[in-house]
């Protein structure tokens, strides 16, 4: 019970970071608005931003789940590549064979789900049952999945999907891009999973202290297994959005998303050591990143500069987190010293 209480207190403490995140987000949006009011606030720009981020937003959701349990999933992009290639092949073959679009699209989505589950089970069993550290397991499966995707396509990109499929990535409902709606639903489901289910609670427990959670009667292996299956499923959803947005798929697509996903998850308050991470923080981090990205785009910065910026931002955020933590610890120690000194005075 004590463990639980202190855990809850700690969670509140960490989530106070969301306050700063909110300030950063508002500042970034204000800066962009002031710098280029006509371009940034235009309806088309907002619409395009809302359509752009979901594909890596889903990868970030996946990465956050892995990080909450104290792991990491380096294979998210590779999983998305692999499932994307499988779906692309099915759509392409079915279209040339003259299968009705509804049938081929359903088939592709079922295939994505099936392949994601297999990928997730592979990661999960390596980590949970064999005990391979998550970094190493997902580093290996990253090569494996990407390799499989490359073998399947022989390095070519695959296109030629039914037109109906394009609406998933490019369509809008009353002006709102469909990927955005999908992402909102996805984020809501993940939030429910984290805050309202036993699985979510256990994930935080394992991330904070696996030994304690095991002795509290949690089946760690099962929880981790489920986590990586959900992670892979989210990567699968990302792949559906990817292939329908680009109308083609090639292995290696979106390799830059790995760093971006880690960046927004860490920016959003998740701790790479596990135990922390929440949806509101992640959402604010994603909005901040997307706004910055669009801003840099409008101002015509090169993609290389953006690559530089993401690395820089990631390191800066982590360094600031460290310094903030160090400072609050320092203050607490100082306060405690002052208290004990005054207590000593009272005694004497």
């Amino acid at each position, binding site marked *: 019970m004590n463990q639980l209480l202190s855990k809850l207190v700690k969670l509140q403490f960490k989530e106070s970071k969301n306050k700063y995140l909110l300030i950063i987000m508002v500042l970034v949006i204000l800066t962009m608005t002031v710098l280029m009011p006509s371009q940034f606030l235009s309806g088309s720009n907002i619409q395009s931003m809302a359509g752009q981020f979901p594909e890596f937003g889903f990868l970030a959701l996946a990465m956050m789940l892995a990080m909450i349990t104290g792991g990491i999933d380096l294979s998210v992009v590779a999983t998305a590549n692999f499932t994307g290639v499988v779906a692309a092949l099915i759509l392409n073959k079915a279209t040339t064979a003259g299968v009705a679009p509804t049938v081929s699209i359903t088939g592709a989505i079922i295939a994505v789900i099936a392949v994601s589950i297999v990928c997730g089970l592979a990661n999960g069993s390596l980590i949970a049952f064999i005990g391979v550290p998550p970094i190493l397991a997902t580093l290996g499966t990253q090569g494996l999945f990407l390799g*499989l995707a490359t073998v399947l396509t022989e390095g070519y990109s695959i296109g030629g999907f039914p037109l109906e499929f394009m609406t998933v990535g490019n369509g809008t409902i009353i002006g709102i891009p469909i990927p955005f709606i999908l992402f909102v639903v996805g984020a809501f489901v993940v939030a429910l999973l984290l805050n309202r289910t036993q699985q979510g609670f256990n994930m935080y427990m394992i991330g904070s202290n696996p030994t304690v959670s095991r002795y509290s009667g949690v089946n760690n292996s099962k929880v981790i297994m489920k986590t990586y299956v959900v992670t892979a499923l989210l990567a699968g959803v990302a792949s559906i959005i990817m292939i329908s947005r680009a109308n083609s798929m090639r292995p290696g697509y979106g390799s830059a998303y790995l760093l971006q996903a880690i960046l927004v998850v860490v920016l959003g308050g998740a701790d790479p050591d596990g135990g922390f991470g929440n949806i509101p923080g992640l959402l604010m981090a994603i909005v901040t990143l997307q706004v910055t990205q669009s801003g840099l785009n409008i101002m015509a910065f090169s993609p*290389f500069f953006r690559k530089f910026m993401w690395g820089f931002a990631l390191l800066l955020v*982590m360094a600031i987190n460290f310094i903030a933590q160090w400072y609050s610890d320092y203050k607490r120690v100082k306060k405690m010293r002052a208290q004990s000194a005054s207590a000593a005075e009272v005694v004497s």
Partner: protein
Amino acid sequence: MKIKQLMRHSETYVLLIVILFSAFVTSVNPAFLTLENLFDLLRSSSGTAILAVGIFMVLLSGGVDVSSTTIAIVGQYISVNVLISTGIDNIFFAFAISIALGLSLGAINAVFVSLFKLPTLIVTLGTSSLYHGAMLEFVGTRAVNVGGLPQSIKDFGSLNVLEVARPDGSTFGLSVFFVILVAVLLLSWFILKYTMIGRGIYAIGGNLEAAKRAGFNTRRIQFFVYMYSGLLAGIMGVMHLSLIRYSNPNYLVGTELGVIAAVVLGGARISGGSGTLTGTMIGVALITILEKNLIMIGLSSYWQQFFVGLVLVMGVSITYLQAKLQKSGRQIIVKEEE
């Protein structure tokens, strides 16, 4: 007894796989087991091996370095551009620039790892994006082809320390790269075995807090490790350039998976504190023959990444499964004693 001891090391198994695979490739294509092909393999894999030594040291200290391939390409691309723009055509100058860059970029990694105590994987992922983006943005994106390459670099790439004559009178030889590799291996072996800093690397990899309390200057050791990895990456950058005679700022980046796979397959534990240089070299040998010889047995190069991933997954699974079984075995013994 000796054999039993050997069988406990995962290096032994990897070595067996290397031998079996070599035998298999030779049976399919006899051109594999010729002195010329072996010299060629040594020449083309020495750079990777040097990079692997740096990554091995980082793993040993309990960290991961995914930025060293990026450091290598930054060192290579900047040094070749400096050579061209200043007109100084000297291989030692190229090495000096590349090594200086490697040391300083390694030191930046160390600042984040050691002073800010941040997770090494995320730090090096961030710095590799930072270094590569900065180079492409501020230095350039144009590849330097063989025509624009300084003569000394081309000469260095074809420098042999040992010449062997073919039956038709032409010669092939053992590249100077191999000598560099041997020198790096000897130096690293000496550091790890006979210096306080080397023992400290094992110590902080085993348990950072314990090493600190035992009086090791952990900060200095971490700076040493990341700067050493950067230095080796700098050396590798120039070697890679004189090997392929072409400098593309997008090369090498993304190959770190293979190098880390090699080191881990060689028996280095990812959580640090355990591993040998011999194992690392065996791991590199395995990855090299996998990458370079799939074509020799008639498989297309698309399979390369798949096989490297597969071997890595299988290798680490066996290692950790073994550890798990040993642990549960020990628990049973303890129970029986009670």
